[in-house]
């Protein structure tokens, strides 16, 4: 893979945290409706996750889009794997697939 230094930092985040959400704002103060939507889904399922605020780091904000070849924020990673943005996470959640997917990855979920 390319020697983009930002990729190393991204790789470290996604490999050292089970669930990582690259988002605008923080889990407590999301600053974008789409980021907030994913935070709500993860909170509802009681899934602990690490929020990475791309608004605080321009390199990560662009780097994450190149890393995943995905043009928008938020981006959800589970066990190092890119799951999707707001649309996909919401669609998976609504169809009951997200809970199953997380369980397959060994991540406990519980409806709040």
């Amino acid at each position, binding site marked *: 893979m390319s020697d983009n230094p930002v990729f190393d930092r991204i790789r470290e985040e996604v490999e050292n945290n089970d669930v990582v959400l690259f988002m605008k704002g923080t889990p407590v103060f999301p600053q974008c409706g789409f980021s907030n939507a994913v935070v709500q889904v993860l909170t509802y399922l009681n899934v602990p996750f690490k929020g990475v605020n791309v608004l605080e780091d321009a390199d990560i904000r662009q780097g994450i889009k190149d890393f995943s070849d995905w*043009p*928008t924020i938020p981006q959800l990673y589970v066990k190092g794997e*890119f799951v*999707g943005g707001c*649309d996909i996470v919401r669609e998976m959640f609504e169809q009951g697939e997200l809970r199953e997917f997380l369980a397959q990855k060994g991540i406990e979920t519980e409806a709040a």
Partner: protein
Amino acid sequence: MAMIASDIERLIKEALPDALVDIRDLAGDGDHYAASVVSVAFKGKTRVQQHQMVYNALKGGMGNELHALALQTSVPEN
């Protein structure tokens, strides 16, 4: 700068000629749309791959001129 619905539809159909494209303007600002795209080309692809195909069709517009595109992709029923 914004994108108009007909441009989005045209670009998607250029990349996916068989696609059925339904675009709804969410905010009237040329920046927030919802789109559903149905195409045989999505067959066997993950959702991420399907959405990437649509984003690639928009030739870099996604995330730039086009701030938000609530996207739903699917394969034709038959």
